[in-house]
């Protein structure tokens, strides 16, 4: 098994574990709502209890199977997804040549999988930060900042074109949503994008 396969297996185990926990929690909580109402009628707790129980049961089983190394799903894993996305006409240098299993493939900008993982983390964190800043900068303000960050820092594009593209998209979105559809977008303390 290659490292990447093992990593997927670990991630799967984590996912099943989480699902089992969520299902179990839902199952236990469901008893706080009545399972059955008077006259044996279906109450508010019955459906969640059954669903939670089933989820906990299935994910628990899958978790055990994954941990025991039953690789039932390996024939239909990430590599196949990448393959089917690219289709039958692999482009040289495109992700068709990326071997998702060894994790060293370069994309068209010549970035390695590790770099891309870093990009993903940066974008995700930046998104969270941007949304947390909304009360301060307004929705368009912070999403504009996020756009700049994504283009200049993450994608490493020239700052002038990034600024132009971001400003244009913000302007268009502002016109469509705030002016045309009259959506009261949050403006923030500074009052951007009212």
């Amino acid at each position: 098994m290659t490292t990447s396969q093992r990593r997927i297996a670990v991630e799967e185990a984590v996912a099943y574990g989480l699902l089992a926990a969520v299902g179990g929690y839902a199952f236990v909580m469901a008893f706080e709502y009545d399972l059955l109402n008077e006259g044996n009628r279906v109450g508010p707790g019955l459906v969640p209890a059954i669903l939670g129980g089933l989820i906990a049961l299935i994910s628990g089983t899958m978790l055990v199977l994954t941990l025991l190394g039953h690789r039932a799903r390996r024939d239909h894993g990430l590599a196949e997804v990448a393959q089917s996305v690219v289709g039958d006409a692999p482009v040289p240098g495109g992700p068709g040549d990326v071997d998702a299993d060894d994790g060293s493939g370069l994309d068209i900008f010549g970035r390695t999988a590790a770099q891309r993982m870093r990009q993903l983390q940066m974008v995700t964190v930046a998104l969270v930060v941007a949304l947390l800043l909304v009360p301060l900068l307004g929705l368009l303000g912070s999403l504009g900042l996020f756009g700049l960050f994504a283009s200049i820092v993450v994608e490493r594009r020239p700052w002038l074109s990034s600024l132009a593209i971001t400003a244009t998209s913000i302007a268009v979105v502002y016109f469509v949503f705030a002016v045309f559809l009259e959506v009261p977008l949050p403006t923030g303390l500074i009052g951007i994008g009212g």
Partner: protein
Amino acid sequence: MLDNLMLGFQTALTPENLFWCFVGVFVGTVIGVLPGLGSTTGVAVLLPLTLAFEPVTALIMLAGIYYGSQYGGTITSVLISTPGEAASVVTTLDGYQMARRGRAGAALSIAAIGSFVAAIISLLLLILLAPPFAEFALRFGPPEMMAVMVLGLATIISFAGDNRVLGLLMALVGLLIACVGVDTGTGVARYTFDSIYLLSGIPFVEVMIGLFAVGEVLNQIHEGAARPIRAGFRELMITKADIMRSRGAILRGSFLGFAFGVLPGAGSTLASFMAYGIEKNVSKSKDEFGRGAIEGVAAPESANNAAANANFVPTLTLGIPGGATTAVLLGAFLMNGIRPGPLLFDEQPDLVWGLIASFFIGNVILLALNLPLAPVFAQILRVPYGYMYPLILLTSFVGAYSITNSMFSVWVVLVFGIIGYGMKRLDFPMAPLVLGLVLGPLFEKALVQTSALGDGSLAILLDRPIALTVLVLALLQVVAPTIFSRLLRDRRAAAAQESDLTPRR
């Protein structure tokens, strides 16, 4: 009947009305293209625009907006895998794959053609059969609806592909997410953690934007920027072969869609999911499904549109909205002085037939506008993804905000975006989750009502012939594929044996 329709066309076909219908289609398409904004939100946000007009003009413009925003959602489903509403989730499965293979133009065209054909068929059915269909739909009480929901959930089998357990698991998760919020029957708040925002449950449009739009963006960042798709203009055009191939799918989708759309509730979503499932089962090239089969776009799009029109059967004849969008439209009708109900056709013939005529006109304009534009829209894929994703994220979040005017929606999108990325990474199927999320409340409501009607027992299901029939159908759907494939294998084996016996020339 024909006279009435002519009367309708006479009222509707003025240059002014045509112009506003065109504006409606265009604006509706633009709104629908924004991530997450489908026809329900599209009609709701644009409704005030129509209030300034004469009733007929307002209605024809609304029809334009309705069809336009529906199609706009299809465009994003195909191009960036972001459905505008639950009913177009299925379109992303094959539509997006077609786009990734440079066939976005064909996918968009077949969607437009399929929707158009379905619209014409369903409108004819609406005119001819509205009263008997409405009558029939009334016999679907809680037990029957519960059976229909079971049938719908059984279609998950068609989506899970090789891994039914995982499909089932995701559907269960969707159903469980649907349990969050105030239970409508008893008023008990479940899993709300004292947050007022969770009282109305986890909103599925936001979940969809998150899973599909944001999840896909994150996934693409991780997968690495693919080379932009540079298909020639000619390849973007739909071919005669495409149309011939989709013919059956469109017709089946249309009739199936109409049948489900008449039932109040989740008609459109169920119809599109089931249409896809059926095509996948009857198709000669099953393997292509999920990898860009054109029937996989044609069938659900036709079914969706036919169901949307069939939704008007209960809306117009009974005054009972058949779906979320028709509920909004019902409000619009009331504002324009139309009082849908059993007497509508007798009391306000000019308005009703004008309305039905404007449905026809709206669909014609939609086709005329979008068929030539489909290859043009497809050009957007030439833009490298790295340049596009900040814009997709921007519109997704602002679009989500505009649904309820609250930051809660935006956070839901982000959370489910991250979940969606995880699901894509682990190859967990999303369609069953969305189906579960949409059907969950309806299923539970029908279950609770059935149990109340049966005074605590579900045996009532056995007394109702329709419910029983539907349940048997559901069972067949689960069991049939296995039996069929076994039969097929046997026959193939037999045929192989036979061919071995025939002497070779």
